[in-house]
């Protein structure tokens, strides 16, 4: 196992295995019955932590997962990467443990301790065997309440992050996505990568880190999900013991500024000596809490998220042989997120692939999907819903996010209903409303001189 945890793209292992076209090879389940069984207990502590407890007694393991309501969206514009740097320093020493002691303690019991920022929120979690639950709470509570932010660790982690940023430039997908976000989220805090940019990371001082932590990390900003072989009583007591003394803070102010839409076609070509063009094409999307989310999910499944059954896969891969992987995404966030299609194709077929993508976007707007497409999309989405919480770790994540986005815990029982009520007319309406084959951002990374991009 790799011993780096911050890299999004850890070095690959040898290509011992090669997939046809991977889809999450995770345990999948079907049937609404188990979906409905997910009913966590929720309570708020005196100092303001929202606690969610879900007992799962199949295995002697416990996931202790916190979501802190702050992320890179709260980075000052000239200091992008601050939220991520703060999160990265949580397990690099506290006032009671050095970085190495934290690592030694969690490794000794074969557990995992992680902290990570994203755009809308930050997560910090401990995964341990049941017998080590006290240690899990101790280490997690310590890193959230007493991070030391030692000067030398700050400098070391920043240098490490800068190095990873350089190395990420070997990944054309990373380069393309970074450019795409800057075009689509122009003028909005979503535009920078979570880990920042070289110049913004270099501007961050230790004082910035301490101030950000002081402002953003307080009990009322925390959702704490505890899932696994633990009882409600035990979990409640552990929360009180380890988080009860955390001083209540005030919720920081939040900007409600939405990203502005892409107003015209914008193309960015990035030269890199490669045999494939990496293509990202898309525009703005919708917020997670929007009522159209479920119709969009069905539409997007048919367009390009439905694996081998999707229109993009059928056209670009199966019929034309232009790509190994192609997919469309709606990344719905607190604020409207984005929509994009991404693929890689050899330099010579760059234009053909882009034309193919645009044509599929156009056709799902212009004509209703077939009854069969609609029925199959729904039966997959409903039948595979429990895939999203088939392990304790995933349940911890999902519970905290359902709380964060305000979806309500009826989400687990009602999701099938919300999908099932989507009609053909809904699909076409949201295709017209949320897809735009004229005003979009297009990024191509590769041998662009040879590709002669015409779009």
């Amino acid at each position: 196992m790799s011993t780096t945890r911050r890299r999004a793209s850890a070095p690959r292992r040898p290509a011992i295995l090669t997939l046809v076209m991977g889809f999450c090879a995770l345990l999948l389940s079907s049937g609404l019955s188990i979906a409905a069984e997910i009913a966590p207990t929720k309570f708020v502590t005196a100092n303001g932590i929202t606690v969610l407890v879900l007992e799962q007694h199949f295995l002697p393991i416990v996931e202790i997962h916190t979501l802190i309501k702050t992320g890179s969206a709260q980075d000052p514009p000239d200091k992008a990467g601050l939220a991520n740097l703060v999160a990265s320093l949580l397990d690099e020493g506290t006032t009671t443990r050095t970085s190495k002691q934290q690592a030694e303690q969690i490794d000794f019991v074969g557990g995992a301790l992680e902290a990570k920022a994203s755009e809308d929120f930050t997560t910090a979690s401990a995964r341990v065997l049941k017998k080590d639950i006290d240690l899990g709470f101790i280490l997690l509570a310590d890193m959230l309440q007493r991070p030391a932010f030692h000067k030398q660790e700050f400098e070391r982690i920043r240098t490490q992050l800068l190095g990873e940023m350089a190395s990420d430039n070997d990944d054309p997908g990373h380069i393309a996505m970074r450019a795409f976000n800057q075009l689509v989220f122009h003028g909005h805090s979503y535009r920078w990568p979570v880990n920042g940019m070289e110049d913004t990371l270099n501007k961050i001082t230790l004082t910035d880190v301490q101030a950000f932590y002081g402002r953003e990390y307080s009990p009322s900003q925390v959702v704490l999900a505890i899932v696994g072989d633990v009882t409600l009583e035990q979990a409640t007591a552990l929360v009180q013991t380890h988080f009860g003394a955390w001083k209540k803070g005030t919720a920081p102010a939040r900007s409600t500024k939405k990203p502005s839409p892409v107003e015209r076609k914008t193309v960015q070509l990035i030269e890199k000596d490669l045999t494939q063009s990496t293509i990202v094409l898309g525009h703005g999307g919708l917020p997670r809490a929007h009522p159209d989310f479920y119709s969009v999910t069905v539409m997007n499944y048919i367009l390009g998220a439905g694996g081998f059954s999707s229109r993009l896969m059928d056209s670009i891969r199966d019929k034309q042989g232009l790509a190994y992987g192609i997919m469309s995404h709606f990344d719905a966030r607190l604020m409207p997120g984005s929509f994009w299609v991404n693929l890689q194709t050899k330099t010579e077929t760059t234009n053909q692939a882009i034309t193919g993508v645009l044509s599929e976007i156009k056709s799902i707007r212009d004509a209703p999907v077939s009854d069969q497409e609609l029925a199959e999309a729904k039966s997959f989405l409903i039948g595979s819903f429990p895939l999203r919480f088939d392990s304790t770790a995933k349940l911890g994540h999902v519970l905290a996010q359902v709380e964060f986005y305000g979806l309500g815990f009826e989400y687990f029982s009602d999701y099938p209903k919300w999908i099932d009520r989507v009609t053909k007319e809904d699909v076409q309406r949201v295709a017209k409303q949320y897809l735009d084959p004229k005003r979009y951002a297009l990024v191509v990374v590769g041998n662009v001189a040879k590709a002669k991009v015409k779009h």
Partner: protein
Amino acid sequence: MTWLYPRHIMQLSWLIAASSLVFAFSSPAVATEPREFILSNGMKVLLVEVPKAPVATVQVWYKVGSRNEVMGRAGLSHMLEHMMFKGTAKYPKGTFSRLIRKNGGMDNAFTSQDFTAYFENLAADRVELALELEADRMQGLVLDMSELTTEREVVKEERRLRSEDDPQGALVETLFAQVYLSHPYHWPVIGWFSDLDAMTLDDLQRHYDTYYSPNNATLVVVGDIKADSLLPTIKQLFEPIPRGPEPKPIATMEPEQKGERRFLLKRDAQVPFVMLGYRVPNFTSEDSYALDILDTILSHGKSSRLYQSLVYEQKSSLAVGAEYSLLQTDPGLFYFYALVSPGQKPEVVEEALQREIKRLQTDPPTELELQRAKNQVEASHVFEQDSNFRRAMLLGQAESVGAGWQKIDQFVERILAVSTKDIQRVARQYLTEDNRTVGTLIPVPPKQPESPSTAAQQGRP
């Protein structure tokens, strides 16, 4: 959230790589013993009842991978895996995955040096559908020229993605080619471009006829099933398939390495990447357990020796690790890798890696380190039971490489018996200079584009 390489591809590769590290799961918790059956045509069936959720995974494993290929046809097994989705007389092209998806399931496949496996993850009450489809394509595949022509291009795109345009992927590929001179582990699972171009329908048909028979396959089902009631269905679906000829064993042996091999790969890249590979035994040797725990001590977790030394103290590497899988059909590779920090020298990083290896050879690890590694192995073995898929994979892999699934049950027990002296001994025996191959990726400036005019245009309407 914003991955461009389809995230799922990497997830599964990771999962597979990781599974070979820690592959035990005979925990006291919920583990039920696999039940083994041999059908009349020689197919092995392993069924595991896990009643914790109404789901299951169905996996069919064939003992064929890139090790069963010949020079000039590298990538044939993987190409055949792609073609296995192109339909049969009964279920024409596109039907397979559509039926599985319609039923709320997901299907896919993977190919390695040693095996090819197909799987469906779905609701337990749909297991029969997956079995029916897998039984059908075990013998009924229709190979079509126009489908091959298109799919060849897809596989070439996959090769570009994994090797041509990925500096680290390219280094890994070269490392194996340098380590194995005569054994088929020499070539990559994905194959070479020229071999992919040369492949014919006849090649695929012969490979299919040779290896896709019940007596060369293992069916694994793990989930909310009842073995007693599922077995008759399995017999009914698979027993009509006739036994095939026994595939000839692969006789090629890799001769002993006599002296260090070194190579450089110079290409456009941001930072250097260093790999050290050592040829080591597989599961057939008792030493494999000590090698496995040695791997854990060196590379698992932030408190491991390699991370503490290269990343934390010396700051010479952005990432560092080691990898060893004892579940290989033929003796494999124990390799180390380090992603060099910007401004640092790959020679210095290589030296630091070798210093850590030397340290283990000079002084055995401490009892505390050994205990930590054993705890890590035991804990992961409990965490792994969270997934039926992972469990089925381990059974399928152990069976397909010839170790036998029972080997998995003995794993933790054997690991716990390893002593600090054993670790020192295997480090001295296998991690030697003469048995070493060192590969270094040296970044060079990118080639200039053929026409300089179009680079990086911004905001063009």
